[in-house]
């Protein structure tokens, strides 16, 4: 009898993401990666480190600064049988190419009655906390999630980063894959220890549309995503010895949204805090709250508390930026308020 060794290794989120792409490219020559500085540079947030060396410039392509053209190119190639991954360097750059994304990538499947598929992944870096200012610190997942026709996944940790990337590449629908710069484990940016973790060596999928119960608790449900997951877990750990039991749900996907997981948790704890680094109004946090009120407002014994970026462009000065980000101090205050402690 042969015993199969299940190997795992400690990886940063960026290395785990790259590993998923590598395994997919090895397995399927239709998978290519294109974007700005993804070749020799390896992606400015280390999304493609080492891939050019392994696969060469015909499969890892540096593009001109022409987002409409190269994202549109990925779309057209996907309709003709390829499985491209296109990188939008920052989600903030969506403005220069949004038409190709939401009017083409996201709608061709629908407008063709399912006859034409667009099996591509659109990756992008998101998030603030390192003083990159208003045009380079946004999350914007609320905007992408709001527009029908594209799945939206947002991993918070190495295991999910690899599994969601594998699932995204294999999905026949367009998938937007948003990686927060602060979870990538980059050596040149302050990082949370949860950015480095054990990851199985083989290819595996994390299902798109399923949230993860990151921490079980009984007093309050904290629903969150991306870097905020780390902060929420840190706060939950600190509050546990003080008798406050916090349940943390890492959504992992926004489209589809795991409403069942949210409802199931709030049915248990009866209190909800939503932590969302995107702009507060008209976005993810409102959608999570509505998930409860659409179904059964009586589940809630206290108003929903939302902790997010206010409707303010992200300021440059460190003290100002950190005043608007959903940091642990604001998360703790929200939890205490909702449990009445």
């Amino acid at each position: 009898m042969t015993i199969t060794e299940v190997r795992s290794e400690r990886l940063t989120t960026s290395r785990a993401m790259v590993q998923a792409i590598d395994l997919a490219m090895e397995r399927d020559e239709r998978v290519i990666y294109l974007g700005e500085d993804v070749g020799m540079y390896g992606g400015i947030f280390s999304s493609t480190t080492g891939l050019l060396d392994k696969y060469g410039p015909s499969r890892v392509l540096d593009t001109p600064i022409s987002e409409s053209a190269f994202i549109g190119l990925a779309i057209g190639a996907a309709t003709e049988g390829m499985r491209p991954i296109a990188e939008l360097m920052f989600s903030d750059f969506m403005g220069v190419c949004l038409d190709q994304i939401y009017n083409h990538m996201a709608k061709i499947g629908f407008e063709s009655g399912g006859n034409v598929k667009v099996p591509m992944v659109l990756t992008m870096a998101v998030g603030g906390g390192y003083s990159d200012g208003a045009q380079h610190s946004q999350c914007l997942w609320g905007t992408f999630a709001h527009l029908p026709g594209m799945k939206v996944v947002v991993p918070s940790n190495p295991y999910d980063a690899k599994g969601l990337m594998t699932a995204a590449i294999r999905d026949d629908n367009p998938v937007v894959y948003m990686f927060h710069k602060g979870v990538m484990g980059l050596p040149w940016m302050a990082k949370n220890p949860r950015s480095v973790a054990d990851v199985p060596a083989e290819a595996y999928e994390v299902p798109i549309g399923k949230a993860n119960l990151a921490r079980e608790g009984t007093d309050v449900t904290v629903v969150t995503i991306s870097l905020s997951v780390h902060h929420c877990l840190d706060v939950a750990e600190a509050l546990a010895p003080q008798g406050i039991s916090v349940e943390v749900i890492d959504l992992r996907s926004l489209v589809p949204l795991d409403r069942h997981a949210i409802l199931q948790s709030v049915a248990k704890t009866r209190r909800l805090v939503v932590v969302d680094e995107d702009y507060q109004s008209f976005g993810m946090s409102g959608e999570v709250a509505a998930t409860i009120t659409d179904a059964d407002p009586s589940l809630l014994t206290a108003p929903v508390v939302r902790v997010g970026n206010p409707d303010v462009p992200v300021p440059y000065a460190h003290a100002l930026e950190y005043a608007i980000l959903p940091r642990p101090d604001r998360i703790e205050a929200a939890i205490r308020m909702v449990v009445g402690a």
Partner: protein
Amino acid sequence: MTDVLFPILSRERPEAEGVVATWFVTDGQVVTAGQLLAEIQVDKASQEVPAPVDGVVHILAREGEVVPQGSAIARIG
């Protein structure tokens, strides 16, 4: 015992200091030669540090601790 040295990234400034940005192994872990031990950073440059030999790794420098280039950040024995 074999020293694992912080790579020299800045030859123009040999006295430059850097940090171990990420340890990928824990103190006391058995490692094999070539296995990725750490990622270090000096100014804007970063580099991987592989294990020079097989053995048990003993970590000397903590993540984020400032160390001179060329100093021993771990030992393998």
